[in-house]
């Protein structure tokens, strides 16, 4: 965990220096689009916000000065599949955003939709030496968590202390200064594929940018689209993206579970393309303009010109009814939602006090999806759009930008993670001594 701790700490330092410079770029690498946002921070407001104002107060501290999106290339299922194309796409987005902002950015905070996130709940506890909780005790208890063996090739991206318990009292958010004997912590650990993040890192490096932070897109879209009550009482955010569907569960304003389903809107498009024998672009177009999941009698009479782009303009006058289109789309959407349902079941979402489910992401714009989702996921489903942040253009306020906006909020006001505390580094004193001993043994 030390290596990870160091890298994450370095990223935090870079983020801090980026905020001091006042400029940071947000990069949402999705399967269908890559969005880049340039945030300008007002350092005076930022420092005020750190002095103990609420999270909402810090929203005024930054402003979006450049936004650009480009069609994503070389990304599949929310992971980088063709590096060069991804790099070119990132370059396109970053350059356009820089042009709009009329400034250059060096630091970028990125999020990735796929890469098989896996959640772990870990717990740890320590005995308090001097009867009350000090800053160093927080670090100690976080270090005492027994990290599960998440296997090689995986890396933790989030490790957030969700809950502190002091003796028999649980549910503390900040136990510092309180009296007690035994401090225990529940931590949420989210790991993803190392390969995915390293590929992305390489792409970003090749664009002359530096990574100042990394987040899972399921988490950040939850930040932006769940309202405060939902985050507090328990709520799930389902981000219906192009290549992957992110699921995150929030309780007490912390993410307690995050996962992604490797299915998304692109599969719906390819289903339409296969089922109706049209090209992908036509399929995407009719999905966006005419798509739906709840068929009514009216839809039988609603005919859609396919105009299949076959080159045979005279004879290709195929038409389908909207109910046929719905018949193609609905099973796939149901499958995606069932995948999300499985994730929620695995998370034990049924046991949470509040069970609001928020659908966001580009896929949530399919008409009638909230009805379908409430059948599959439960009664309390709503469609979520991201929070408004300052300077965000109208074109970027839709649900497709929820992870982008969430990442901006995350950049401005990140939650405490494990690496924000100073872990007691036990090995550092003894290690050189051991090495010296070994050297002696080896040589004499």
């Amino acid at each position, binding site marked *: 965990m030390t290596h990870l701790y160091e890298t994450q700490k370095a990223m935090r330092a870079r983020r801090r220096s980026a905020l001091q410079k006042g400029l940071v770029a947000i990069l949402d690498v999705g399967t269908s689009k890559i969005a880049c946002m340039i945030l300008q921070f007002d350092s005076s407001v930022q420092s005020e916000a750190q002095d103990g104002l609420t999270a909402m107060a810090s929203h005024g501290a930054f402003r979006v000065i450049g936004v650009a999106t*480009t069609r994503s*290339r070389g990304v599949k299922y929310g992971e980088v599949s*063709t590096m*060069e*194309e991804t790099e*070119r*796409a990132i*370059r*396109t987005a*970053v*350059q356009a955003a*820089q*042009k709009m902002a*009329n*400034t*250059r950015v060096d630091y970028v905070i990125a999020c990735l939709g796929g890469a098989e996130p896996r959640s772990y709940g870990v717990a740890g506890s320590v005995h308090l030496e001097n009867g009350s909780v000090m800053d160093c005790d927080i670090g100690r208890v976080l270090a005492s968590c027994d990290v599960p063996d998440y296997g090689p090739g995986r890396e933790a991206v989030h490790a957030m202390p969700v809950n502190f318990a002091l003796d028999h009292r649980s549910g503390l958010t900040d136990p510092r200064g309180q009296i007690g004997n035994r401090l225990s912590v529940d931590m949420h650990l989210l790991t993803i594929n190392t390969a995915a993040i390293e590929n992305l890192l390489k792409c970003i490096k090749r*664009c*002359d940018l530096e990574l100042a932070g990394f987040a899972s897109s399921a988490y950040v879209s939850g930040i932006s689209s769940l309202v405060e009550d939902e985050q507090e009482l328990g709520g799930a955010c389902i981000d219906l993206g192009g290549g992957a569907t992110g699921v995150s569960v929030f309780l007490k304003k912390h993410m307690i579970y995050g996962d992604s389903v490797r299915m998304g809107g692109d599969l719906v498009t390819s289903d339409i393309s296969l089922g109706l024998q049209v090209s992908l672009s036509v399929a995407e177009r009719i999905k966006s303009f005419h798509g739906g999941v709840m068929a009514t009698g009216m839809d039988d009479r609603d005919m859609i010109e396919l105009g299949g782009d076959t080159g045979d303009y005279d004879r290709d006058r195929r038409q389908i009814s909207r109910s046929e289109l719905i018949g193609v789309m609905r099973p796939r959407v149901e499958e995606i939602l069932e995948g999300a349902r499985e994730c929620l079941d695995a998370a034990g979402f049924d046991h949470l006090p509040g069970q609001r489910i928020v659908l966001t992401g580009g896929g949530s714009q399919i008409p009638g999806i909230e009805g379908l989702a409430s059948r599959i996921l439960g009664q309390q489903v709503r469609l979520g759009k991201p929070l408004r942040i300052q300077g965000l253009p109208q074109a970027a306020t839709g649900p497709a930008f929820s992870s982008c906006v969430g990442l901006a909020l995350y950049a401005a006001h990140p939650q405490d993670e494990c690496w924000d505390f100073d872990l007691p580094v036990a090995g550092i004193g003894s290690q050189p001594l051991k090495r010296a001993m070994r050297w002696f043994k080896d040589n004499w």
Partner: protein
Amino acid sequence: MSSIDPRDPAPSRIKYRMERLWLTPVYRSLIRTGIPAALVLLVLGGYLKDPDTQARMARSVTQARAMIEDRPEFSVKLMRIQGATDPVATMVRESLTLVFPVSSLRLDLAAVKEKVEQVEAVKTADVFLRGGILDVEISERLPVLVWRDQGALELLDGEGARVGGVAHRDARVDLPLIVGKGADQHASEALEIIAAIGPFAPRLRGLQRIGERRWDVVLDRHQRILLPTENSVRALERVVALQRARDVLSRDVLVVDMRDGRRPIIRLSQTAMTELRRLRKIADGEDASL
């Protein structure tokens, strides 16, 4: 390896880097202002370095200047001297050596004023330009004393400043004479003494500065009044009072010495002295014929 889609809007890496460089404030200001400014300076410097160009520029500047200076609006055609007698005016004209018409832009009035005031007979001068005429208003020094110093006769005004020379004492018999080294520096004291001289005025031959320290009043018949260094006028007034009461200097007295403040000391001539002794013997009952 997939070939790149020709419709891909992505900028090439070079273009991307250039764009980023362009958006860097330092480079931006350098390219926008630094390099053009440097180029302009370089070209200008190269052009101006040529001595021919420098000479041509200097020439054109002087020509332009001369053209403006020579305009009739600026020309001064004559000089009018006011408040001076003719000989002084001639001296002023000679000292100025101006050739009219002259441009008023080339005329340094302060220098002209200084030059006019350097003429000895001029006390102060005011110089104006009034519509193409150089107006010199002069207040002359008036000679009040004749000073003889080592054979040269000079005219002094009340402050002791030299007004001019005079060939013979006879030319200015109206002015009193002072003699001696350093006399000019105490001309005002000399004037005071002369003013206080009262009944001796017809007999006064002149004042003599003794040892650059004090004054002697020289009268005819080789009589002198020796005045002290301090309070010379008061001492003279005492002598005047003595003369009025006792007619001292009408007698055969050579010197009235006032240097001792307590009493006047009188030196008699030789004949007066023997006569005095004779008379005293008579008074003492001795034979006067002896």
